[in-house]
């Protein structure tokens, strides 16, 4: 029997990659996706429907009528990635509520996998500097709390419907074509770094994030998994790898720095400041074993790919060239 797959957040880079992988699978029957922006890559079989999550009733009606058997929930929006922090939290909440309730009402639901993040663990501390899935989440930022809320709402589906539910807690996904506040910040000519600390952070390659989601669907993994690129890097090291200039910042000045950097074109959300000041890693061994992710791209390779991406160079139009 083939699956009826619904991909929320399909217009984003990661959602589109998942759709491209899913439509190649023999088990995938009908593949549909929703988002408020269209995908920017070619899809062969998957069908996209443009629905803004803020139009909750329209989204719910569509999902209920489609009656998916598998939901890949990428409709989880990172603040300062493609929209303001307030819009991101609002869209994430509305998309999750409408999708999960309507999918359950559809009557065919068998599995749900949701995008979450290491941000749910909060700042790294002596309690757990490399948290595994058994560590109790204690988010301290709006994005971390938003992710934990999504996990809770999806866990409700497990309770009510008795279906397996998987939460993939991604390390920050960074890539040349992925709108990411961390990636944007690291590509600035001058990068703010903590003055008296250099905590490690891990990253995840966009392709690996999509592979992990498809593997979770195929293996019907029930529970939370950390998906983390091997190894780590530190803020000072990242600055040197990218040939950027470090701007040492001490505690009280982070708020001011974030405002100045926003004017320079890279808004820094609180979870990004938390990552730079306290680090962000996780133990990803369980996901490697359970999902067979043997070839994850190392964190420092993800960073190098980001820095090797060419700068945007304005090319004069033909009219300007003639003039």
């Amino acid at each position: 029997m083939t699956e009826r797959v619904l991909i929320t957040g399909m217009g984003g880079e990661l959602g589109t990659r998942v759709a491209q992988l899913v439509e190649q699978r023999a088990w995938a029957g009908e593949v549909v996706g929703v988002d408020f922006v269209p995908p920017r890559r070619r899809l062969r079989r998957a069908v996209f429907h443009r629905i803004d999550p803020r139009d909750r009733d329209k989204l719910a009606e569509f999902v209920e009528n489609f009656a998916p058997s598998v939901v890949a929930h990428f409709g989880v929006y990172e603040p300062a990635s493609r929209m303001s922090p307030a819009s991101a939290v609002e869209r994430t909440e509305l998309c999750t509520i409408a999708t999960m309730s309507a999918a359950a009402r559809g009557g065919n639901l068998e599995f749900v996998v949701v995008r979450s993040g290491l941000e749910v663990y909060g700042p790294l501390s002596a309690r757990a500097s490399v948290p595994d899935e058994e560590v109790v989440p204690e988010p301290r930022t709006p994005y971390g709390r938003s992710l934990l809320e999504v996990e809770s709402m999806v866990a409700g589906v497990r309770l009510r419907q008795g279906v397996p539910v998987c939460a993939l807690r991604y390390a920050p996904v960074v890539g040349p074509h992925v709108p990411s506040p961390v990636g944007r910040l690291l590509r600035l000519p001058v990068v703010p770094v903590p003055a008296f600390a250099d905590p490690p952070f891990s990253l995840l390659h966009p392709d690996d994030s999509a592979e992990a989601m498809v593997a979770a669907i195929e293996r019907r993994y029930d529970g939370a998994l950390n998906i983390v690129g091997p190894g780590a890097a530190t803020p000072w090291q990242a600055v040197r790898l990218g040939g950027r200039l470090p701007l040492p910042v001490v505690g009280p000045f982070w708020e001011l720095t974030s405002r100045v950097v926003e004017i320079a074109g890279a808004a820094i959300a609180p979870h990004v400041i938390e990552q730079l000041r306290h680090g962000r890693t996780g133990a990803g061994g369980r996901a490697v074993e359970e999902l067979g992710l043997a070839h994850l791209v190392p964190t420092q390779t993800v960073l190098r790919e980001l820095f090797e991406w060419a700068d945007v160079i304005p090319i004069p139009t033909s009219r300007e060239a003639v003039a």
Partner: protein
Amino acid sequence: MNTVSTIGDRDRLDVDHVGKVVPFGDAVRRRIDGNFPVDPFGFDPHLVDLVSPLFTSVIRVDVEGGEHVPTTGPASIVANRGFGLAEPAVLGIAVRRTVARRLRIVGAPSVPVLGGIARRLGAISASAPDMRSCLRAGNLVAVPLAPTWLRTGAGIPPRPLLQAMANAPIVPVAVTPGGPFGTAIAPWHVRFGPLVTLPDPYDPEDPLAAARFGEAVRDSVAGLLEQQA
């Protein structure tokens, strides 16, 4: 994707085993370029390789029972605690010389700057999740016992870490300074003992079984200390 695989091979540096020595000039250049591995605990093996000749030239170590230390895979090395400053370096040198592996040491201080430096050199925090994650990553982890009166005996093992330790081999070790009255004038003595065996069947959730397990670990270290005396 060729770029990724090429760079990926360079990144897949072994943070567990000691590799070939990088010439000093190359090592310094790599530090300046930021081209060195770091693991999720903040461990910087490249930095350790740079500073270790300094320690080995100052600290002399005699090792016995090195055949008990696993050459691959996760294991806990449970050690008595002296005054605490030189022991981690002594144990690290002993492990490096015996099995060419890098040692992670439980007990990173939760203090800014100092804690960061300790983590760079291989310390991890004394928390069960970090112990679990470190062993799951296949590392060799040193766990100091609680300090004792005059710091001459084997203290009790840290109870919160016992459950995390139960899933990997446990090697007891006695670390004592070689000079009179506990001074380090003569070489330090490091004696590794045979693996500690757990009660069979062992249930880490059972407090009584955990207490017996803790005693077995302490007795193993105490036995080695008596042999040293």
